[in-house]
């Protein structure tokens, strides 16, 4: 599944092995960053953790799979970058609609209710998506189609970098720049920032909070869907519960960067991805089973909650009455 992570002669070149792990971590981290952005944006406008976000990520991967099946003959005629872009954009639109629908049906009726109720609903939505997916798509692992051609990029010394990895990183960076543009330069983006600063004041200033919240959910879900397709291209085997662990790790990334802080989420995602890959790559030297890589994020979460709960880039927030 993750063949390129252990290259055969790596231990002869410790520095190049380190660089290799660093790169692998960067690719994985860019996907975590995409998912983390959705958590942090929703937290920014609604002040709650959207547990179902990781499952929208799973939904994105499955949408990609079914789009590829559905459009198969057409895809074959197009050059692969176009085909990939078509699948990516369509899946993002479909999942954005799903995210908006989830918010409308499950979270909107609870807008003024205690936060605990919304949290429980979010867990319910998450389980509902997972088990419905299990019923519809089946519980077994399914191979994800090759939408990015296989092959290595040469001329990097001892380092192995696949085309898939490069495309993943480039797509993630482009999406993050696009998000930055939407949030900082457009009217809806300004409304989002206003809403996250003070919902009452933004409503008084003529912002339609409901529309902005729907938009935020759509934006976050679209990024999660893109993350799902990129993740499935890196690890091409998908199943209904694939979103649980990446979702949790991305949440940790959002907390690490400072929840509600958009650049923080991207930074947190990269840190989590790199740390996790390094721990797995050096598990022999560290003397721990490589299965513990999934625990890394939680250790980071506990540490950040103990020492800097506001996150690396977040500002400490006092609760007011």
């Amino acid at each position, binding site marked *: 599944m993750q063949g390129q992570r252990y290259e055969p002669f790596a231990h002869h070149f410790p520095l190049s092995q380190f660089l290799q792990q660093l790169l692998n971590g960067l690719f994985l981290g860019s996907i975590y960053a995409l998912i983390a952005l959705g958590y942090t944006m929703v937290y920014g406008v609604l002040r*709650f*953790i959207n547990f179902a976000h990781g499952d929208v990520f799973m939904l994105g991967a499955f949408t990609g799979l079914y789009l590829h099946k559905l459009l198969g003959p057409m895809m074959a005629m197009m050059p692969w970058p176009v085909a990939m872009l078509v699948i990516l954009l369509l899946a993002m639109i479909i999942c954005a609609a799903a995210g908006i629908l989830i918010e409308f049906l*499950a979270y909107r*009726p*609870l807008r003024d*209710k*205690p*936060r*605990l*109720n*919304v*949290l*429980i*609903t979010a*867990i*319910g*939505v*998450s*389980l*509902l998506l*997972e*088990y*419905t997916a*299990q*019923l519809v798509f089946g519980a077994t692992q399914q191979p994800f189609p090759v939408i990015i051609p296989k092959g290595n990029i040469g001329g990097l010394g001892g380092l192995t970098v696949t085309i898939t990895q490069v495309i993943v990183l480039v797509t993630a960076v482009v999406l993050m720049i696009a998000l930055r543009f939407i949030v900082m330069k457009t009217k809806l983006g300004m409304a989002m920032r206003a809403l996250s600063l003070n919902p009452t004041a933004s409503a008084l200033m003529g912002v339609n909070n409901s529309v902005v919240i729907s938009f935020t959910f759509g934006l976050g879900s679209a990024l999660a869907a893109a993350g799902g397709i990129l993740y499935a291209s890196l690890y091409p085997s998908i199943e209904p519960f694939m979103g*649980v*662990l990446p979702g*949790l790790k991305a*949440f*940790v990334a959002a*907390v690490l960067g400072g929840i509600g802080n958009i650049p923080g989420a991207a930074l947190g995602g990269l840190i989590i991805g790199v740390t996790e890959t390094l721990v797995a790559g050096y598990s022999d030297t560290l003397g721990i*089973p490589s*299965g*513990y890589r*999934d*625990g890394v*994020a*939680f250790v980071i*979460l*506990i540490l950040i*909650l*103990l020492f800097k*709960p506001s996150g690396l880039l977040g500002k400490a927030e006092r*609760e007011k*009455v």
Partner: protein
Amino acid sequence: MKHHTSHFALLLALAVSLGVSLCSSQLDDYYLDIMLNVGINVILAVSLNLVNGHTGQFSLGHAAFMAVGAYGSSMVTLEMGASMMRVLGGAGPVAESVTFLVALLVGGVSAAVCGWIVGMPSLRLRGDYLAIVTLGFNEIIRVVLQNTNGDGPFGGALGLKGIPAYTSFFWVFATAAIAIYTIGALVNSTYGRGFLAVRDDEIAGESMGINTTRYKVLAFVIGSFFAGLAGGLYAHLRTTISPEGFNFLKSVDVVVMVILGGMGSTVGVIVAAVVLTVLNEFLRDFEQYRMIVFSLLLIVMMIVRPQGLLPAGLFQRRKRA
């Protein structure tokens, strides 16, 4: 007056469970097994209710504390059982009971210690963090147990086998009675008002001089202790345990009991635990729909009737008059 009634009820419950236990050989094995399952789930639900209901926090990792209790107590009976028996004057009902009691307490205390370690960093912050940290803890416990050495004391992914079947009707229902009594007495005491204050308005409670973190951690540690006891009982009932038995879904089962019964309503939670356990048993053929129904229940309950089917006020109105 109230105190005498509850003391009397506790003694009665203990006596009845001892009585039934003595003639449990007369009962059909299948129904006895369901009854014991009901008892264990009642302990789990009532203890989670202290955290999620009375104190208004949200733990999603009750199964993890159950796992700690199950493994802790099984290690006592498996590794030290024989030598303890020898010290206590050879195998016999008394020596067995003492060994089992010690094992259960070791399991409960180790779960409580884990509860303290997990609760301390996360309970300083708002409720949502506890949900994520406990969810993560649930995963970590499973991953760590699965990655242990198969020949070691934890038995790796296959778990532990050949645990003595000490759990009887008396042990389960005596523990359940003690759990209900202890938690009920605690919540109704002056001290217990602190839990309710944390739930009702944390900021107001804090400004009245209540150390909210301390109350939250205390509730969480006590809840974990009883979950550990339930785990010990479960291990010595099933005689085999594996890490998979204590996954996230087990935690969700308990959460659904608490929410369906009504958060903070002991009677409601007990009724829900009994009904759901029995229903689960008879709906085994519909396993794949079970979680879909559960998740829909969570969402619908939060939107339509967040106080649960049998809310706390239902039984307290008469007392106030």
